[in-house]
């Protein structure tokens, strides 16, 4: 069992005092930012990425793992107590969780979400550790043409398969692809669309784009929207602890949620949020208390929260083994790797095994820290919810700007941040999804390189693109993912897809 050895070695690294401290800082920051209303994991990770710049790669990625899991935990707290889910994956949690909080059962709702996330995170991280070596072997057998097919599939699922309009999704995707063209072309060394500005030679920074679209865009939208009725923060009354009955009703949904969420997240395609919806409908179908669904059923919190965390750990499988980010959060994590000159992919396991395994191990560590940190400190996090919106968004703007110029001290970068911020506002105003833009920017150049490599190796023969069985299967799935939703929408079933919109900010 080679995996065990590697994992234990990774744990040894992750448990060194300094690394434990980094993980602790990561989970604390991640939870604190993630709990803020309107801020989901993608933005949490993008805002906090510059914090990790000063560390060495291992320390930085360990802190990053903490931020990632912390942001996930924080998000569920918000949706239970405030009913404004920070991300689409938490919508389902809000459905039942907020109802529970209104009935004064906020404590158990938070507890089952936290423990469910812990259980799911634990199982899914172990799943990641065991699946990854297999995926790496598979990934090494893929050629440039197969990679291109894989990326086409990811493009389709991220942009067109979910949401209320394939056209809007594809428009957002192509915005990202166009931005991805900027910079020096790797195959010829020639600069494209850089307009003589040296800062653009290396392309548009993913973090700048993500922070601008998510943070600046959201702040502008909040500023432009007239204040609605006062949002109610449900106080956490009574015991935080779950009753015996709560436990009995929670443990099966946790496991089922994990079993549903992890494989969906681990698939090299977008749409990791589906897991939470599937888990919710599964629990609704299996429950012995159908009358409680819609009025605060604990199963409806336990299952989706577990599925959400399991699929978040699952998205790390394609990210680490294939270098393929399938969500905006994963795209920003990829940027986190790239700042150290590390390219996630099958070779990272070969050339930088200690780093990868200490990252996986620190996900386990972060998971333990969060359960210890979250349950007792829930009162503290709740206070963050009470920050008035103007203060909150002024603060977010300040930190976004500081982070951006801290990472790239140049006026051009600042101008880009503001310009993309306006773009982000426009996208939100006209309800275009944000994630496809970010995924397009980071995957576009990769897909282009793979396509051109494939064609160069075949000396220009395009049939190479559909030469391997893997590529053919991937294109078929991509075609189904593109066409099936169109048919569903034509038949008037678009509402289901709309609910599954991959809008994670």
């Amino acid at each position, binding site marked *: 069992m080679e995996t065990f050895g590697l994992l234990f070695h990774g744990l040894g690294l992750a448990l060194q005092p300094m690394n434990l401290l980094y993980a602790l800082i990561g989970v604390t920051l991640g939870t604190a930012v993630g709990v803020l209303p309107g801020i989901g994991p993608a933005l949490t990770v993008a805002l906090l990425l510059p914090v990790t710049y000063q560390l060495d790669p291992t320390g930085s990625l360990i802190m990053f793992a903490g931020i990632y899991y912390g942001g996930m935990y924080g998000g569920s707290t918000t949706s239970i107590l405030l009913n404004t889910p920070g991300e689409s994956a938490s919508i389902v949690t809000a459905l039942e969780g907020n109802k529970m909080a209104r009935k004064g059962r906020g404590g158990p709702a938070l507890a089952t979400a936290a423990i469910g996330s812990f259980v799911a995170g634990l199982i899914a991280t172990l799943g990641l550790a065991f699946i990854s070596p297999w995926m790496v072997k598979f990934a090494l057998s893929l050629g440039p043409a197969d990679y291109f097919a894989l990326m086409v599939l990811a493009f389709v699922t991220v942009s067109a398969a979910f949401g209320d309009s394939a056209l809007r999704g594809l428009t957002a995707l192509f915005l990202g692809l166009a931005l991805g063209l900027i910079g020096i072309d790797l195959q010829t*060394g020639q600069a494209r669309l850089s307009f003589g500005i040296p800062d653009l030679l290396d392309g548009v920074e993913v973090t700048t784009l993500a922070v601008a679209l998510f943070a600046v865009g959201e702040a502008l939208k909040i500023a432009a929207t007239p204040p609605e009725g006062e949002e109610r923060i449900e106080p956490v009354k009574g015991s935080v602890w779950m009753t015996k009955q709560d436990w009995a009703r929670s443990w099966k949904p946790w496991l089922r949620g994990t079993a549903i969420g992890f494989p969906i997240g681990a698939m090299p395609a977008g749409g990791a949020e589906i897991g939470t919806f599937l888990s919710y409908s599964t629990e609704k179908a299996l429950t012995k208390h159908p009358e409680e669904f819609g009025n605060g059923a604990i199963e409806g919190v336990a299952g989706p929260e577990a599925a959400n965390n399991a699929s978040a750990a699952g998205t790390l499988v394609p990210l680490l083994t294939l270098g393929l980010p399938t969500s905006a959060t994963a795209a920003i994590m990829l940027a986190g790797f790239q700042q150290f000159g590390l390219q996630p992919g099958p070779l990272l396991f070969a050339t930088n095994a200690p780093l990868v395994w200490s990252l996986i191990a620190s996900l386990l560590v972060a998971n333990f820290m969060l359960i210890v940190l979250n349950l007792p400190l829930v009162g503290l996090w709740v206070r963050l919810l009470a920050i008035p919106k103007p203060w909150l968004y002024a603060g977010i703007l300040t930190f976004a700007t500081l982070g951006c110029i801290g990472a790239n001290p140049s006026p051009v970068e600042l101008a880009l941040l503001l310009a993309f911020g306006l773009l982000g506002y426009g996208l939100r105003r006209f309800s275009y999804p944000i994630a496809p833009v970010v995924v397009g920017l980071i995957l576009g150049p990769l897909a282009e390189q793979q396509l051109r490599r494939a064609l160069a190796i075949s000396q220009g023969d395009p049939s190479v693109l559909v030469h391997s069985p893997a590529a053919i299967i991937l294109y078929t799935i991509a075609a189904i993912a593109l066409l099936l939703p169109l048919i569903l929408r034509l038949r008037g079933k678009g509402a289901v897809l709309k609910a599954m919109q991959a809008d994670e900010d």
Partner: protein
Amino acid sequence: MLLRSLSGVVLAAVLAVPALAANYTLIAPAAPGGGWDQTARTMQTVMQDEGIAGNVQVTNVPGAGGTIGLAQFVNQSKGNPEALIVGGYVMLGAILTNASPVDLTMVTPIARLTGESEVIVVPASSEIQTMADLVTRLKADPGAVSWAGGSAGGTDHIAAGLIAKAVGVDPTKVNYIAYSGGGEALAAILGNQVTVGVSGYGEFESQIEAGTLRALAVSGDARIEGLDAPTLKEAGVDVSLENWRMVAAAPGITPEQEAAITADITKMAQSESWKKALADRGWIDRFQSGEEFRNQLAEDTTATATILKAIGLVK
């Protein structure tokens, strides 16, 4: 007047007092982890440990084959005797292919430090056993031989172009597949996606030792110790190429300042800990400074422009 000349004297006296040890800021024009970054960090450690410099700060300014870092260095450190930048052969190619507005004549080159041989590899399962086999294939159909290596116009690409030229194949026909580095090209080579790989020895060392890659030849003038592969010249291909790395100082410094920096760098390059660091990393000592280095640099620049034009990357 008197006061001014007096203060001038005082100032000169202050400047003349030899600082116990200079401080340096060192730009590594690449992301952490690569060759330039490793060079800069090694210089930092050695200069501080040997007491040559009081404090050395390394700043990474990655991108565009080092030309982004170079542009920043030229614009921001004019006349600053504490500013240094690491560079090398790859930068020469990048300046030309990117049509960079700044080049190495705009800085004060101090010394060449290290060299690293390129190695030409095939996967262990390949039918190609020797360099001669590869040359035969290349002559038969240049397009059918795909080369995987680092970025376009870099040392790896130049090596492929020079080999083609030396055996009488049109260098524009070289089917070069660029990756962001030799290490990233590994998957394509190991997976039999491409015919042959070319990059710095360090990038392929562990795979060659593990037996998954077969080294056909090395590009330097001498064989690499412990590696069973001929030099290109021994294999009948008249090419000699090494990827070298250098250090340069800011533009507009005085000759005295240049001499002081050269003295510090020379002292560093002669120290035991520098030699040990080179041995650990498998770098060859290629120290060269002053007039000799300037001439070599000019020569290499011309040669690089010629081959890049032959490959078709530079008009």
